[in-house]
């Protein structure tokens, strides 16, 4: 335990996701030794994120305006929507440069034990987007790209059941392959099960 403000900072940093007690300490002492100008830039960035960032009213991604950069971009295909859990997943898919469609951010996954059901996520917004034309184009495909874990799989199952009700809509799920460079015998049962059910013709 350190004294006063230093320990307060370590405590606050330690509450951030992915920051363990050791990392919190390391960051705190880095900030303590850092150039005052660097620290005030960080301070301003933190302030701006709470004041200036909003959520896109179409897709739910973080945005500086009412609608985000991707939803405003006429070059992005309006017929394909990729459903993800969090804004950070949009970034991850954008980095692949493989996807030219648009997104829908749910804001999490269906996790009844944490009290998260369909009403706590942006599910209703997704359903109302389908059936609405964008620049004269209908949504014809929804890609379910929720996390490959228990809650993410259950969320994809739930959405798949709802989306089946829309005639002419194609619903796909990200393939979950076996990690490259591994031996089949070491694959866990969940991954192997999904790889089997998602197999394709060769």
């Amino acid at each position, binding site marked *: 335990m350190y004294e006063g403000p230093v320990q307060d900072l370590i405590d606050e940093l330690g509450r951030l*996701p*992915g*920051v*363990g*007690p050791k*990392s919190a300490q390391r960051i705190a002492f880095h900030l303590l030794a850092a150039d005052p100008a660097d620290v005030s830039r960080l301070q301003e960035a933190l302030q701006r994120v709470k004041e200036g960032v909003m959520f896109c009213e179409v897709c739910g991604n973080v945005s500086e305006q009412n609608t985000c950069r991707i939803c405003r971009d006429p070059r992005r295909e309006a017929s394909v929507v990729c459903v993800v859990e969090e804004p950070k997943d949009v970034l991850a898919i954008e980095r692949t440069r493989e996807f030219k469609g648009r997104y829908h951010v749910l804001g999490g996954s*269906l*996790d*009844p*034990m*944490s*009290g998260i*059901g369909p009403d706590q996520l942006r599910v209703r917004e997704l359903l109302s987007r389908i059936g609405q034309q964008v620049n004269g184009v209908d949504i014809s495909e929804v890609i379910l790209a929720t996390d490959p*874990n*228990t809650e993410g*799989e*259950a969320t994809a*199952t*739930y959405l*798949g*059941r709802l989306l*089946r009700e829309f005639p002419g809509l194609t619903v796909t799920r990200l393939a979950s392959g076996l*990690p490259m460079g591994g031996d089949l015998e*070491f694959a*866990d*049962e*969940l*991954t192997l*099960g999904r790889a089997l059910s998602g197999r394709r013709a060769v």
Partner: protein
Amino acid sequence: MSLYRDTGVVLRVQKLGEADRIITMLTRRHGKVRAVAKGVRRMTSRFGARLEPFGHVDVQFYTGRTLDVVTQVQTLDAFGVGLVNDYQRYTAGCAVLETADRLTLEQGEPAFRLYLLVTGALRALAEGSRDASLVLDAFLLRAMSFAGWAPALTECARCGVPGPHPAFNVPAGGSVCPRCRPPGSASPAEETLSLLAALLHGEWSVAEAASAGARREGSGLVAAHLQWHLERQLRSLPLVERRAKPLAAAVDKDNG
């Protein structure tokens, strides 16, 4: 460093630091165990997926200073694979896990019967041969009976006079006779109380013949009784999908 080995069901996982998780498990011999699984959130981790909720695993721990640490995991039953493909069964399974977690307060307190009950319920839900809502209610009734507060169903909760009785009162402890009946008691159908008795005693042929109305009313009584005895509300229970499978459906086409 002392090692021990047990089989258990993963009830809950919480993130810890950058790549670790705290796993809460209900084990066969050591009751509830909270342990750290290191590095499991990395995509390259071999036991990450085995330590997901619903996993029934053979696991080795070493005793740590504050929390024990998982060193090896083998899957016995990947119940989650079947459950995540059906949202109703998934929500029912979540209620099973949350109830088991809440009924085992102390770490290390033996809970062998509850462990068998949880694995039995998850197996039935994952296989999908029985109605998920009935499986959940049977689990809840038996779990309450292990905890010592199963609702009285065939006799009066107050004076013990044999029934069946036409009134049910949760604070009084279940069905009540006309003389003991407190004001504000519910008046469930006789069929509902016999459904609950059948679920408690595992008489599936009786339970599966029950009408949709009795099932709905029975689920309501079970939930009210459970919530009355738990300090905090179960978060998953209101989110369980309760639609009953049509009785005549010989082929279950609805897999979603």
